[in-house]
């Protein structure tokens, strides 16, 4: 008995076959690029030019248009990686392994951006580059988890068993995600509490919120573009002598 309807299951199996995924990614990429620019340009213009200065921080607060979307993405990508890891372990789906391993460097990049921009903002606003409070420390651990996933994958020669080890690491590390998110509520931290995801209305003015959401959308689409490109490359690296790769080379020749 299966709780997934047959047509959906069929769709997944077809999409997950490497040649089908490769051509699908090729078709999607130009559209995603257009969407990315459509979100990024108004987001940046709205955030850096149109949005008013903050009543306390003046123009310094504008770092949130990079910092906050990057931090959201660092959590989002890790959860996605854990889900992929679960799928890879249970269904042994090759594409899930490829997506997991292709996501890790991108997630590490977003985490680094969040840490660096936060540090640059922290010096003038808090009076320090870095403090070991629960939010900052758990985000730093997230960076090490991403780097750990990439290095573990690189360290094991056989890529199928490497993918299995990496899937388990991704699943174990997911316990850090709720800790990062709730750290500012569970403990006294120097980092402020959540602004947008509060249960009542967000404590950010609407004129500042709209560019922030546009930037968050742009970062999501950027991730999709980056991960599809990385996954395409990883698929070819995995099966360099497969028939579909040969066909592809002949097409392009």
């Amino acid at each position, binding site marked *: 008995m299966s709780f997934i309807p047959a047509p959906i299951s069929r769709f997944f199996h077809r999409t997950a076959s490497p040649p089908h995924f490769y051509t699908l990614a090729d078709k999607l990429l130009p559209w995603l690029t257009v969407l990315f620019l459509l979100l990024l340009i108004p987001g940046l213009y709205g955030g850096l030019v149109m949005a008013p200065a*903050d009543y306390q*921080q003046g123009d310094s607060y504008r770092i949130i248009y990079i910092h906050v979307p990057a931090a959201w993405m660092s959590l989002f990508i890790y959860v996605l990686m854990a889900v992929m890891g679960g799928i890879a*372990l249970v269904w042994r789906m090759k594409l899930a392994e490829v997506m997991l391993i292709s996501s890790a460097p991108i997630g590490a990049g977003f985490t680094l951006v969040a840490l660096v921009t936060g540090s640059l903002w922290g010096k003038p606003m*808090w009076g320090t580059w870095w403090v070991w409070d629960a939010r900052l420390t758990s985000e730093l651990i997230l960076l090490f988890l991403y780097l750990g996933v990439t290095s573990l994958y690189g360290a094991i020669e056989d890529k199928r068993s490497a993918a299995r080890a990496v899937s388990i690491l991704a699943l*174990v590390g997911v316990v850090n995600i709720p800790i990062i998110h709730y750290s500012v509520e569970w403990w006294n931290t120097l980092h*402020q509490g959540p602004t947008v995801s*509060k249960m009542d209305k967000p404590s950010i003015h609407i*004129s500042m919120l709209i560019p922030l959401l546009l930037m968050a959308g742009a970062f999501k689409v950027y991730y999709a573009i980056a991960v599809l490109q990385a996954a395409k490359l990883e698929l070819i690296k995995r099966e360099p002598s497969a028939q579909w790769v040969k066909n592809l080379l002949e097409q392009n020749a």
Partner: protein
Amino acid sequence: MKPHRKQRLLLIGLMLIGIGLAATFALKAFNENLMYFFSTTDVAEGKAPRDALFRLGGMVVKGSVERPGADLLVRFKLSDFSKEVTVEYSGILPDLFREGQGIVAMGRLDGRGVFVAEEVLAKHDENYMPPEVADSLKKAPEAE
């Protein structure tokens, strides 16, 4: 779903629950150390360490900031809306330091019960708004 897949799914589920529980217990055990700072009520109730460096957080009480000398010494009161603690600090204050703002100070209690800070960090709140909105919010309670 095939039985061996169901088994693997179950195994992953159990693993996640196990790790979650382990993390919860570990965090509970380290709860005190994960607090970046003590509140002023903790100090008033004697929960904060004596003769040791610790961090104290709270709101700067409005109208309590004074500079007794010509040097950099600043004296102000910190509050968490129930207990107040007097803080002395000699140095440059961060941009966001102002009355009514949350701050975190690192230092120790002296014999008088005054917290002598070696470092003062501003704690930023989660509100973002244009200055005009902040002004109108300030005026609103006065109009009532």
